[in-house]
């Protein structure tokens, strides 16, 4: 019966460790997080003056019009959907995702360059021509989809390339926009680690404050 004895022993230690690492440890971090860092622990949510949630400072949103700085292309449209027509249940749980297209996959070229087809359903507009129509000099981050499909940032170059368009649509001077961009840059950690990025949602919220 030594196997039986071993199983009982394994079961006992499993339950003891279970309580320690899967119950006590998460509870401690939950408590510390909620008490000491409530803003971060609850998702860095941005609220307006009336307390309504507008989004998260860490999660991007889709922007395609002239009045806003565009965000990067996203395979899940930033986990957004029309609530009247959310057959995939995106709004139930929230999603993340990526294209996972290999660099050699012709579908990647089609997506960026566009593809004509006799069947208009199968034709692809192409990210490049969308950018060109909006008058934006393409940069790598605006052509390629992000890893999470929720990327909150665009590069400084991508933001700068959009200044003229947004300035015209809003009747603002380009220098005003440059200031807003600089105010919404998330820099490198210690000036060394990571890449600087312009937080698009926060920048566009700041725009709406200047010219509602």
């Amino acid at each position, binding site marked *: 019966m030594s196997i039986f004895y071993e199983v009982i022993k394994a079961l006992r230690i499993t339950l003891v460790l279970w309580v320690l690492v899967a119950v006590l440890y998460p509870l401690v971090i939950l408590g510390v997080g909620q008490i000491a860092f409530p803003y971060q622990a609850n998702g860095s949510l941005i609220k307006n003056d009336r307390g309504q949630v507008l989004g998260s400072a860490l999660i991007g949103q*889709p922007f395609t019009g002239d009045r806003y700085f565009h965000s990067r292309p996203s395979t899940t449209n930033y986990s*957004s959907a029309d609530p009247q027509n959310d057959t995939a249940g*995106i709004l139930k749980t929230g999603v993340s995702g990526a294209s*996972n297209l290999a660099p050699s996959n012709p579908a990647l070229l089609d997506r960026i360059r566009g593809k004509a087809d006799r069947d208009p359903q199968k034709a692809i507009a192409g990210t490049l021509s969308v950018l060109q129509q909006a008058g934006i000099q393409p940069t790598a981050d605006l*052509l390629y989809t992000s890893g999470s499909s929720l990327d909150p940032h665009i590069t400084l170059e991508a933001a700068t390339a959009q200044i003229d368009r947004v300035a015209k649509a809003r009747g603002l001077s380009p220098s005003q926009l440059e200031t807003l961009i600089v105010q919404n840059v998330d820099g490198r950690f210690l000036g060394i680690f990571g890449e600087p990025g312009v937080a698009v949602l926060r920048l566009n919220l700041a725009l*709406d404050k200047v010219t509602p």
Partner: protein
Amino acid sequence: MVQGWIQIAGTLLIVLLMTPLLGGYIARVFLGEPTRFDRLFCPLERILYQLSGIRAHATMSGWHYIQAVLISNLVMAVLVFITLMLQGVLPLNPTGLGAPTWDTALHTAISFVTNTNQQHYSGETTFSYFSQVVALGFLFFTSAATGIAVAIAFIRGLTGRPLGNFYVDLTLAITRILLPISLVGAVILVAAGTPETLAAPVVVPTLENPNVQQAIALGPVAHFEIIKDLGENGGGFFGINSAHPFENPNGLTNLIQILAMIAIPTSLIYTYGIFANNRKQAWLVYGMVFGIYLVFIAIAAIAEYQGNPAINTLLGSPQPNLEGKEVRFGWAQSVLYAVTTTGTMCGAVNSMHDSFMPLSGAVQLANLFLQIVWGGQGTGTAYLFAYLILAVFVTGLMVGRTPEFLGRKIEKREVVLTSLLILLVHPIFILIPGAITLAFPEQLAGISNPGFHGLSQVIYEYASAAANNGSGFEGLADSQPAPTGLWWNLSTSVSLLAGRYIPIIALVLLADGMSRKPVVPMTTGTLRTDTGLFTGVTAGVILIMGALTFFPVLALGAIAEYFQIAGGI
């Protein structure tokens, strides 16, 4: 470009400084020497031993040790499988998720108990907070601690000590190493922006078009995140893992995650040096692995920095390949993360490996094939010394001296066990299932990227399973409800189990045998293993063995894809 290299160099410098500190600490813990934290931990451990009925000083024989590993892991996997299947009626399920399919739950339980964390599901849409925190978060600690315990037993045996007690080492690995570092790391992650809440996802109208709404998934992420990386687990809370802005919001969290991934595998080499009382050999081996690691980083970094030629033509200038990469990480942090995660068998990703350039993909695959740059939690270090034993044998044959390692003769049993361990198990459970799957591309494979890359997708999935890594070329249709999901769940489960437990059995038996051998006194005729020359020979053995086994797959997959892209798609 220069800024990117500075980031990489800065991170590696911290790793170098960290190694002797953590490695020395681990050695003191498992040698039973006093440490600064004894007053804190000793009472806790006494309570744990009492509750679980462990006799702290009873050492185990080889087979007894193996039995304890297998039975405890089986018990844990069964309990977790049951929890996952019952999640529909369990609490902390704000999005009302039902039970996953049986094969997804089975694959997940096996994948997490083997320290692999290959995920054939998306966290947000498949598992409740309860399943993630209580079931998967539990295996994060125990599977990592199992790896550390086996590595320590292996080092003990190799240096002529009794193997120790598995349950004691399992407990110590958690209370002394994994849990304290996780507590500190998790608090830093929360402060830096990683959520830790039980609240349901938030739904907000989007700013530009309020008729369209955005769902922001939340959860108790921070405590999960740090042990995911520190324990070489890699299973993301969210589907897209550390690319998700909540799992990894900025440069600080990314740095912490990379350091957490690499901390223990690097330190254990130094720990070995203290056990063997031969720090020179430890640093030589360390330097060898570091060298391979640097070359791999450089290859991948240059490939990503140069970008995709076909897209660069459209951009009008060469720009880095950012497909599947986040702006806040750019090419440098994405490459460093990718090479580190595939090397340390963590499997967390902050960018999508499927969309990396072919030579970066080749580097990732090479890491999975070799398993020693730095290798998995505990097992990687053990493989490294198994390679050393193999190199002793090969050089012994070449110069006609009796092969000895640390004063103990390397004989038939040792050679059979190491070659089984290194040369046979790994390729068998990658190449054979890979070949079967490729024979039925429509019914089984579910390849999403055509051409040469498709081969890499299939081989990567099995290599990731057999090496207990867990990352993937994720375009592959390997999850339910895809029709190929069932095959992938079941076939990779075989590779997961074989890739974990056969080597662990062999390692413990090898160490057990070595510890019983008499020590042969060192003479002028003894082959010294702590020299630069011998370390170079070991590097040669590792690379030649790896290349002979896996080069054909790399040539037909990643390398062919490289030439395809260079020649214009």
